[in-house]
């Protein structure tokens, strides 16, 4: 599998690059643990005043935090670094090097930079997930697990395509990095169930900046809240965005190389 081979090659390059900075590991670990600490402390204060939050039990919200960390780690591992570097390369001309390589440019650009320390977030998220699942006990069965994997994958595809669409804008606009920062700010809101938010905010966090599909929807699946409608929308949106982002990318590339429309 060609993709796998390339991915492995880029992965080891990234590892080599980071290993030189060993102290980064402890620094990252510290940061991730502090993040986790904030989330858990906040939860315990809130749940000292109420048993459920908009219908979500403390363990359910904890599961959400786990998904939040896990998906956040995935974004930080491979989605964001590649897109950030791509945006830079459009402006400093190093994109030309990528374009003279005999591999699909979108693929190269997507896997070119891997921030391996985000693995810590992925691991922590997984840990929190498992812990909260144990506490949720029999509420989670095979059906929920399968749905979870499905919408989690859909969520990952949605996030990736969303980032790609934003990054592709740098073929036309300068300073697109700002748009990536929007996602960062909005993603914070994904620590809580999106269903808690008033209509307009919920809509924004679902369809404008798809934070909901990254965090709340997979957590819904895991805690048995997922409706068929949501599942279908998630999968359909994933397919749609993946295709759209690819088409938009090719349009951007043609624009960059001055092809007639």
């Amino acid at each position, binding site marked *: 599998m060609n993709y796998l081979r390339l991915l492995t090659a880029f992965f080891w390059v990234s590892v080599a690059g980071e290993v030189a900075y060993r102290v980064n590991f402890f620094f990252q670990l510290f940061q991730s643990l502090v993040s986790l*600490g904030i989330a858990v402390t906040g939860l315990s204060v809130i749940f000292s005043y109420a048993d459920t939050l908009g219908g979500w039990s403390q363990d359910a919200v904890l599961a959400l935090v786990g998904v939040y960390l896990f998906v956040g780690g995935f974004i930080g591992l491979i989605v964001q670094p590649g897109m950030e570097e791509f945006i830079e390369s459009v402006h400093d001309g190093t994109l030309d090097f990528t374009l003279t390589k005999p591999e699909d440019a979108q693929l190269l650009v997507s896997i070119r930079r891997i921030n391996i320390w985000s693995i810590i977030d992925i691991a922590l998220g997984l840990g929190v997930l498992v812990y909260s699942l144990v506490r949720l006990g029999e509420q989670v069965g095979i059906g929920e697990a399968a749905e979870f994997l499905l919408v989690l994958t859909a969520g990952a595809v949605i996030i990736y395509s969303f980032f790609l669409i934003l990054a592709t804008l740098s073929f036309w606009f300068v300073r697109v990095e700002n748009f990536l920062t*929007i996602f960062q*700010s909005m993603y914070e809101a994904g620590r809580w169930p999106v269903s808690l938010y008033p209509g307009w905010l919920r809509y924004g966090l679902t369809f404008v900046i798809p934070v909901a599909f990254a965090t709340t929807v997979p957590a819904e699946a895991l805690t048995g809240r997922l409706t068929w409608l949501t599942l279908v929308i998630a999968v359909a949106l994933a397919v749609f965005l993946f295709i759209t982002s690819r088409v938009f990318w090719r349009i951007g590339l043609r624009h960059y190389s001055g092809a007639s429309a």
Partner: protein
Amino acid sequence: MKALLDLYTQQFKTTLATMVAYRASLLIWMLGQVLEPLVYLIVWSIVSNSSGGSIGGYATSQFAAYFLLLMLVNQVTYTWIMYEFEYRIREGLLSIALLKPVHPIHSDIANNLSSKLITTPFMILVALALVPVFHPSLPLVPWAIVLFFPALLLAFAIRFLLEWTLAQSAFWTTRVGAVNQVYFVLMLFLSGQFAPLTLLPFPVQVAAYVLPFRWIIAFPIELVSGRLTLNEAFIGLGAQAAWLLASYFLFRIVWRAGVKIYAAVGA
């Protein structure tokens, strides 16, 4: 004195131009500033509603008022120097600043104030726009409103000095990010950004009162919300003044030590 005024005027023009050039990032930053208190507002409102309309002395509408005020107080007292200081040292900009006959903090003050002249009106507009959405309730206590402004000013001064001092940790470590993060955690819980302080466990409240954090954010909000007696208000202002003095001395000491280290290592 005139030179200082000149400096501030020039800095204002520079800041204005920079902000226009970076208006997109600015907008996005403000979006983030609004979103965080908004999320806590919503979460606490839900908890309050599901517990019969109020918890810990705060009704849902009072939560709304608290967090909308939080947006404004946070905006007015905000500084970003902790993010920049390490960059300045690395890029040699600090050396350039040290060559000038004016303390570097002045251009930071000027920059901070100039940018707030522009962003604060926006924030006020946003907060006003959210009023019909969240229905906050705020009693109108005249003396409280009057005392709010000196409290706000003191809060800003304390926060600025403290964070400027904190930023100088860059003289001693490259792991400034870790230092900042610890500070942010303390701020989040102890200054009232996560929840009104009276909702937190008692030991945490004590810590918040003893440390400067309460006086930076929570105190002005509690004051203008009419939750304090006149006595408490004056004692609070006194506490702020004391912390301002303490912050100033801390700032002087740390700066002198920092510059010594910087000069020893070589610019």
